């Protein structure tokens, strides 16, 4: 998916994560902000990169503000941010079977 505009998904509530995506010229730039970054930063990064790869995102600047989110929440917020940033219809068909 191509990132054509800036988008945010998620909140700063406990157990959530707020993912911000912006267009980039080339490559993926990923920043993790988390109070548990020392313990889980690598895991959050791995989940985010895997999710971006599954969606075919090749160029974007991504900031994840983690508030103790589970992996499934990181995935959900990242996917939502990507769909929004690609200009997809919020009620359009999502490829649920392909979203891992």
């Amino acid at each position, binding site marked *: 998916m191509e990132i054509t505009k800036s988008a945010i*998904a*998620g909140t700063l*509530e*406990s*157990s*959530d994560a707020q993912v911000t995506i912006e267009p980039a010229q080339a490559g993926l730039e990923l920043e993790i902000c988390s109070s548990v970054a020392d313990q889980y930063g690598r895991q959050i990064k791995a989940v985010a990169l895997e999710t971006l790869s599954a969606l075919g995102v090749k160029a974007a600047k991504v900031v994840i503000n983690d508030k103790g*989110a*589970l*992996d*499934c*929440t990181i*995935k*959900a*917020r990242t*996917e*939502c941010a990507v*769909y*929004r940033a690609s200009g997809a219809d*919020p*009620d*359009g*068909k*999502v490829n*649920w*079977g392909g*979203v891992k």
Partner: protein
Amino acid sequence: MSELTGKSRLRRTMMFLSAQRPGLVKDAYVYKPDSVMFDLEDAVAENQKDAARFSLYHTLKTVDYGNVERIVRINGLDTPHWQEDIRVCVAGGADGIRIAKCESAQDVKDVAAAVSKAEAEFGSKEGSTLLMAALESPKGILNAYEICMASERLFGVAISGGDFRKSMQTRYYAHGIEMQAARGQMLLAARAAGVQCFDTIFQNLDDIEGFRKETQLIKEMGFDGKSLISPKQIAIVHEIFSPTEKEIIEAEKIVRTVRENSAKGIGVFVVDGKMIDIAFLPGAERTLAIAKAAGLMK
């Protein structure tokens, strides 16, 4: 003794959770409601419907709810959201879907058709996604029987008190008179159609005594369970909707005695001073099935 499974499974408590809030959905199973109700409708802001679906999908796919049933309340059929809501429910493997603001058999049929299409798309077993209908208006209540009979997938109907009271130009009263006719009519329709029947939420979380009274009222009316908005309401409903030890012992005795006497060709007899005949058997068996499903007996 028949077991309560599938469409007839034990559903004393259905706890609402906003599908959009990870802090709520990640471990709601620990409170052990019979069912959780992931909400895509009123609890989710209009501009967060997409986010709620992504959150719901991964919750359904990732979090192990054990024996807790996972139902999803989808947005109304008068919105642009409900069809994608159905796709994500089926793709995620939800056990059931609650149709909001249901007013006719056609509403149920429209949802059932979309669910069938989604089951085919995502490779789910045809008919594996159950339905329930929320009746929130006078029209919905008046059409309750046709709604209850509209689909093989439908396991029950629920009244939604907030919208219903508004449409009737009334409000909540502790004695429940404002809901009496609708509760009764919906219950009659559900029983005639052979589906389950659920009561509305109780909003005042601090009024424990009021909640207990309302729960006792709907139990006595014949409801199967109640929608909840807080874990602290679960134990009260389970207590009121579960058979007591005395009721279980009495039911066991009735089942045993009916069978023994039937084998001897005796139709009417006395158990602990009460006249009993074959007509008491289904009720006693149901008491035991509920006790078993509730984990009160093996």
